[in-house]
């Protein structure tokens, strides 16, 4: 199930889950690049016939800049006085009232800022600016020889920032361009690329990508290098430390991430406001969040004790200064921590939701509710309550445009439906999410982020398809997942596990246990319990009954500790199957009944049906096929509606066996047998679609026997032939084949 808390951390560039690029103060310095923008604006104000109303026209306006306006060219090839005269003439356009750039508009403000900044420059600074402009001009032209048609790369970027949209990969493109030819020789030369604005943009962009679409962000090593360069030039650029923290979290580097985080807050404390005040803003605030972030860091690395201590500290400081918002953040981490440690945290979570709602923090409140739903679902809360809660939070999300939480909510719904065994509903929910466009502005031509929610939903989709025997489709989905979430990224573990599970199931169904075995270790590496369970399954299949039993016992203890109901039921079912192997059908019954109760309590329909199948089989073996048939009727409907292909086949096979057994001694034996033949035909169809040869062999065998009994020689021969063909492919059948569902 989607863990909803991955994104719950204090990010200075983020409020309520939305990243704001412009949190850094505007610093007014005239740079060569800004002069270019000024020239562009100047051009625009001169050419009155165009307006800014349409982008197409704007593009036309940008064209002169791209082709290097004569003014700029003149300035560069000319003398210092040309630049001086440019700034002298610049105010003219908007001293007259009909100018395009009114004094109070963004553009007007920018121009005025620039003028003021220019006038503040000292003598030598003006000259420096001029030489910088020349260098800038030469660099831009130098990078693309030939006629001066090449647009300066940065110009695209800032314009899109300033103006309407949208081609945001300017920064990235720049980075990419720089890296390949950054040989060790020119290395130190390249170390001066970014202006303040560019640096800020770069950081905000990368932070956003790390959160939403890690794949597109720079690779960890490259990003770290970039950050180090930035810090070398300006050690006071504290935000870079925070990004470095996020970046090293990506590669699970405890040392650097702690170092960067603390460094960031040490730096923030200085820049944060007026120094001594302990109030809501500035210094005191950053202290609280520093402690909170440290707690978060330890949480993510699984240092629970450390996390607890740090959290206590954050809570204490927040309490002392009456910072309720910070306290709420602490509380939500507190219940997350409790959850991670495996203890019950629902009371805490409820408190958190209430308080967050009271203080008007929709993001935290929703996260809390989602967490509660997750706990409720595993704890067996009524389904309607959960769904209601999710619906209510959805309203909240749409109201506040919390796009990230909408995604999570849908993923969660998918997971819950899947857990309840309603595959159709799960499919639908998954499709809703996958067909939805993100509310946040994403890259050009792409409407979605690559967040965990999408990974979760896609994994469900892959598994659902595999269950229906659509292995081609499922592997397509997995291929897509691999592209979207490459193996080194944060959410790659999800599809890795999913992929392994599917392969494992296939190998088991094929009867190729030796192929399934290597997967067990891989699964165990990703998910301990799942791995243990699969280990038991393989052992059971290989007739190592005692060992299998021991493994299952261990697993059961583990499950009871973590309260993982689904796994408990599965373990019970497998243990019952072990009892069958030793013909202990009656000893299996209490276990199965217990499992049934649990499954019904938690509304786990798929598992309940599975349990009924097991019960029915036990009854059949105990010689009460009528009873078995009775309870089977109850399970057939949900299985046929929602079940996996294999379950359908198994259910039908069992029904056929019961029908045979029931009709054994009766006078209408023939009709009974004919019914059974039909059922078997259906089951065989399912098994062959799944490629489940082992069971197909059984089915054909039974079919042949039945046809023989009914005297249909031709059909009998046909089935016998099919049986023989399958039988030759497979290793010899196990002795106690009959003792299997």
């Amino acid at each position, binding site marked *: 199930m989607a863990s909803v808390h991955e994104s719950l951390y204090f990010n200075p560039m983020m409020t309520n889950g939305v990243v704001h690029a412009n949190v850094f103060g505007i610093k007014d310095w005239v740079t060569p690049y800004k002069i270019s923008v000024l020239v562009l604006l100047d051009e625009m104000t001169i050419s009155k016939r165009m307006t800014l109303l349409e982008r197409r026209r704007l593009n036309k306006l940008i064209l002169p800049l791209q082709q290097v306006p004569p003014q700029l060219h003149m300035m560069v090839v000319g003398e210092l006085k040309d630049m001086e005269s440019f700034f002298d003439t610049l105010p003219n356009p908007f001293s007259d009232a009909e100018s395009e750039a009114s004094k109070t508009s963004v553009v007007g403000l920018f121009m005025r800022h620039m003028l003021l900044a220019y006038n503040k420059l000292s003598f030598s600074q003006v000259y420096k600016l001029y030489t910088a402009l020349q260098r800038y001009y030469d660099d831009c032209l130098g990078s693309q020889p030939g006629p001066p048609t090449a647009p300066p790369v940065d110009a695209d970027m800032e314009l899109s920032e300033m103006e309407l949209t949208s081609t945001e990969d300017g920064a990235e493109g720049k980075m990419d361009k720089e890296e390949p030819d950054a040989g060790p020789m020119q290395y130190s030369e390249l170390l001066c690329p970014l202006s303040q604005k560019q640096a800020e943009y770069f950081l905000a962009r990368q932070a956003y990508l790390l959160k939403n679409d890690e794949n597109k962000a720079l690779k960890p090593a490259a990003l770290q290098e970039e950050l180090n360069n930035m810090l070398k030039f300006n*050690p006071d650029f504290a935000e870079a430390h925070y990004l470095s923290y996020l970046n090293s979290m990506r590669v699970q580097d405890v040392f650097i991430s702690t170092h960067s985080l603390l460094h960031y807050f040490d730096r923030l404390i200085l820049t*944060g406001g007026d120094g001594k005040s302990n109030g809501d803003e500035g210094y005191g605030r950053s202290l609280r969040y520093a402690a909170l972030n*440290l707690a978060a860091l330890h949480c993510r690395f699984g240092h629970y004790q450390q996390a607890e201590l*740090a959290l206590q500290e954050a809570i204490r400081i927040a309490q002392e200064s009456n910072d309720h918002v910070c306290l709420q953040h602490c509380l939500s981490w507190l219940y997350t921590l409790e959850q991670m440690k495996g203890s019950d945290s629902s009371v805490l979570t409820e408190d958190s939701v209430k308080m967050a709602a009271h203080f008007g923090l929709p993001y935290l409140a929703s996260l809390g509710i989602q967490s509660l739903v997750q706990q409720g679902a595993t704890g067996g809360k009524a389904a309607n309550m959960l769904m209601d809660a999710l619906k209510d939070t959805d309203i909240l999300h749409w109201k506040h445009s919390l796009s990230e939480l909408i995604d999570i909510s849908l993923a969660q719904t998918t997971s819950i439906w899947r857990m309840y065994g309603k595959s159709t509903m799960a499919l639908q929910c998954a499709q809703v999410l996958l067909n939805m466009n993100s509310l946040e502005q994403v890259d050009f031509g792409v409407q979605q982020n690559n967040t965990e929610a999408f990974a979760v939903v896609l994994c469900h989709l892959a598994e659902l398809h595999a269950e229906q025997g659509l292995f081609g489709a499922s592997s397509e989905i997995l291929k897509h997942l691999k592209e979207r979430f490459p193996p080194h990224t944060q959410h790659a573990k999800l599809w890795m596990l999913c992929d392994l599970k599917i392969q494992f199931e296939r190998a088991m169904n094929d009867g190729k246990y030796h192929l399934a075995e290597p997967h067990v270790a891989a699964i165990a590496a990703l998910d301990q319990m799942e791995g243990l369970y699969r280990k038991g399954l393989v052992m059971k299949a290989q007739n190592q009954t005692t060992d299998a039993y021991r493994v299952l016992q261990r697993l059961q203890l583990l499950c009871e500790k973590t309260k993982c109901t689904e796994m408990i039921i599965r373990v019970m079912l497998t243990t019952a199957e072990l009892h069958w192997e030793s013909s202990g059908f009656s000893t299996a019954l209490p276990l199965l009944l217990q499992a049934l109760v649990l499954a019904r309590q938690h509304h786990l329909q798929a598992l309940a049906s599975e349990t009924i199948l097991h019960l029915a089989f036990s009854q059949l073996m105990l010689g009460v096929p009528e009873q078995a048939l009775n309870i089977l009727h109850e399970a057939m409907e949900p299985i046929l509606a929602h079940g996996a292909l294999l379950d359908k086949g198994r259910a039908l096979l069992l029904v056929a066996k019961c029908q045979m057994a029931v009709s054994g001694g009766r006078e209408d034996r023939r009709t009974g047998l004919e019914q059974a033949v039909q059922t078997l035909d259906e089951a065989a169809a399912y098994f062959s679609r799944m490629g489940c040869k082992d069971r197909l062999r059984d089915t054909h065998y039974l079919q042949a026997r039945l046809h023989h009994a009914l005297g249909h020689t031709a059909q009998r021969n046909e089935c016998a032939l099919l049986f023989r063909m399958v039988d030759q492919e497979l290793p010899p059948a196990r002795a106690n084949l009959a003792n299997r569902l």
Partner: protein
Amino acid sequence: SASRGRLEGGATAQQYEKMAALSSEFGDLVQIKKQLISVISLCKERGLVHSVKWASELAFALKPLPMSELPPPAPLTEEDVEDLDALGLAKSYFDLKEYDRAAYFLRGCRSKKAYFLYMYSRYLSGEKKKDDETVDSLGPLEKGQVRNEALRELRVELSKKHRTGELDGFTLYLYGVVLRKLDLLKEAVDVFVEATHALPLHWGAWLELCNLITNIEMLKSLSLPDCWIRDFFLAHMYTELQMIKEALQKYQSLIEAGFSKSTYIISQIAVAYHNIRDIDQALSLFNELREQDPYRIENMDTFSNLLYVRSMKPELSYLAHNLVEIDKYRVETCCVIGNYYSLRSQHEKAALYFQRALKLNPRCLGAWTLMGHEYMEMKNTSAAIQAYRHAIEVNKRDYRAWYGLGQTYEILKMHFYCLYYYRRAHQLRPNDSRMLVALGECYEKLSQLSEAKKCYWRAYSVGDVERMALLKLAKLHEQLNESDEAAHCYIIYIQDIFSCGELLEHVEVSTALRYLGQYYFKNKRYDEASLCAQRCCDYNDAREEGKALLRQISQVRDQGEASSADVSLPCVFGSLSNNNTPVRRVSPLDLSSVTP
């Protein structure tokens, strides 16, 4: 600026190699003296003032040579003669800090000496401009981007010559400096090693190498020339790497070899003692140094630190006034004055002087840390954090700054948060008890008592300077009702205090005595208990309790209860029982009874 001035060096390398090879032993002090005299003239010709100073100081410490033994001046080559006038002119401009002008007149010269001065002038000109430009940059990001524009050209030219093997010891050194400035540290190390081989007597190259070596493994991996100067280098290196014991050994052997009068060695040893906090030794050495070299300003900031730690106000005041008279615009002077004001609790003024020191040299590490301390005193935590962070940026291995950061956060009551900083400090100084005690206190505040106990015990084991670790450990045991352990700690504590013969805080001694009295009483060891109680009576705050305990004891004794004969209990005053006056200076304490 210091970085500019540091650069130095040069003569014809061939002569030099010969000289170095002649005597790699200390035995021949005359040879060493000769070498020093010639290297001094070589460096002087090239404007490498710091190396000249170092070599001259060393030469001064050796016996003067008779007339006949004086080395002849280096022979002139034809090229040298050609360039003689240009070189003379350029050198005079160079001395007047007109570097561009000097370089201009040297551009056509072919002799090696002129070439070095030419390149060196260009380098210094770039450095000077860089410093000037930092003042008017175009924006905050620009600030870090101000570079010495000459570096790249110099590097290209020098690397060409380097490849063809045309560089002599001095130019190699310059090449190394250029590489270091360009952050090509690995290449720089190689070039500096090469430079030391070409010209072992040029101290500047060794010093640069010193700054680039970060750990002992790296030091061991370098192949250095076998020359007497290497021992000076190693000793310096050991001090830098905090391997004080090895450094002191090296310096001692240098003194024994005949350099006993060298002020350089004395100052280095003093600094080394300062680093291991052997304050008395360091103080006496510094006093000796002041006698021999009364106008010395170097290292006086370290001296003032020592005076500060010992709270020697008059001495510090004298030092400060003295230094101001000599030169008030020196980093060291400012630091001394800062320390002086700090000792007088005038923290604003202290911070002001540290700021002035930083203006004189922004890379002055000590000043950043000290300024942090001042802000701490003024309770301006955010400014303190800033100052400490700057110090760390200058030198990541500055344990004082890490410790200071920890203290700052501790003051802000963020005990968990400050653990990280204390741990960093502890990593850098594993055997310094102060960090361990600080760590222990934090753990105690976080109720991680077992961790705290470990820290305190370790602090005691590495030699507790403040003698607080044991007491804290004892109190911790007391809290946990581990009375035997507590008593044990108190006993060691009292023995420690009494044996070192110093009068420390009475409160703590009386606490220990009080606890021990009760402890013995509970264990029915009345003799020891009454002894402790009597001792208690010597302290004002424990007198009443002491008397009460004595009364209790006599009561119990009257009832005829015998002392427990349990000899396993430790006894602190075994041989003192009939001595009623507290003896602090002498220590006739029976240590044998308390072996743990």
